């Protein structure tokens, strides 16, 4: 399942891409699984077609999805590719730094952030184990 919040500060395209990325990472979606068409997902979420199309394109650029004419969009890989390990590491660090900045700006102290991070880690790996990922 994919959930988005219309009143969130995070753009919808990013929420959709993150949701799919999370499903792939936790094994909810496996390599070769067919994703909904752009029209189907846009209709279900009640968002613009372009919003979903942009999210799919971003994931295709990461190598996670592939679109084959006549066969739709499928999960291409459960990893973003090992060739650019350094680049991946840098990207993850950037995102973590961004999340930490958000936490600091939201006046969360270090203990609260650590607690939140541990909770999310537990939830994430519990989901991944459940899906065999």
């Amino acid at each position, binding site marked *: *399942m*994919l*959930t*988005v*919040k*219309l*009143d969130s500060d995070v753009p919808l395209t990013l929420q959709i891409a993150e949701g*799919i990325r999370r*499903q792939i990472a936790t094994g*909810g*979606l496996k390599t070769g699984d*067919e*994703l*909904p*068409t752009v*029209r*189907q*997902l846009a*209709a*279900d*979420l*009640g*968002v613009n077609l372009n919003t979903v199309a942009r999210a799919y394109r971003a994931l295709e650029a990461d190598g996670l999805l592939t679109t084959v004419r006549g066969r*739709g969009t499928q999960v291409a890989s459960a990893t973003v590719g090992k060739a650019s390990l350094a680049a991946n590491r840098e990207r993850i660090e950037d995102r973590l730094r961004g999340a930490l900045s958000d936490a600091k700006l939201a006046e969360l102290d270090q203990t609260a952030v650590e607690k939140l991070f541990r909770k999310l880690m537990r939830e994430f790996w519990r989901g991944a184990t459940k899906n065999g990922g």
Partner: protein
Amino acid sequence: MALLENIMTYGFWPIMILSPAVWLTCVRTPAGVEVDRDQIARLTRWVWISTLLAIALYVTLLILWAGFPKPMMLGAIAPAFTLTLRALPLKNPDWGPHDPNVNTRTASLVNRRPTMPVTRAWWLLAWVAALGLLIAAASRGLFAFEVLPDRNERVMWYWAMFMTAFGPFMVASAMWAVAKTREEPEPRDAANDQRLEESYASLRNFRAWCFYWLFAITMPVGFSGFGVVMAWAPVSANLGGALGMGGGILGSVIGIAGAVFGTVAGLRRVRINRELRELQANDRQAAV
């Protein structure tokens, strides 16, 4: 009979024009649902203004040009209709696929295309029927031109070809319409309720089969069948009246069947929307 004809000719359009506004006014907000009453009142006011303007236009046209093409009124209905479609789910979320008052939306990441109940074999049947009837009508043309070069028969054959040519066109349109049933909005609850999923699947398949039997089989076979009879019946048999009556009955039956199917599908959808609204309310409570 004349009275009935007058009612049908002049009464139909005012009823069509008034329907959206009356419908919107009669719809009630379910108990416990918070809605933006100011926005609804504003939209309802504009729906009534557009409706009264359309009625005024209809009456003016009737006075100045009684025989004006009535389908022109579709353009005048459009504003009230569009505004009603916008206002209805605001007033009662069960009348729209998405509750405008809920900002969290959930969707399944499963592609619904492989769940299509109308398989290739069913489409083959529809194509064989439509093309078979087209060939049956067309083959008469060869005789009409070479063996029976009667002008009336040729005119009849042109009409027959016109009717049967609709068959393949209708089957192609039905393929598109049936495929679209997989892309109807099916928002879900965060807990992924199984019963909701089954309700969606059942309605989705109901719509696909209704579209198939109505637009891929009944309409093409019915109208092309008439075309074949027209092509092959001798002009001397004077079947024009009977064929016209038969075509009228078939058209009416298809129209009524379509209306019944649309109403049933619409009501089932409202029930699903209500289920979803209740599940989403549970989700919100659980989150609190």
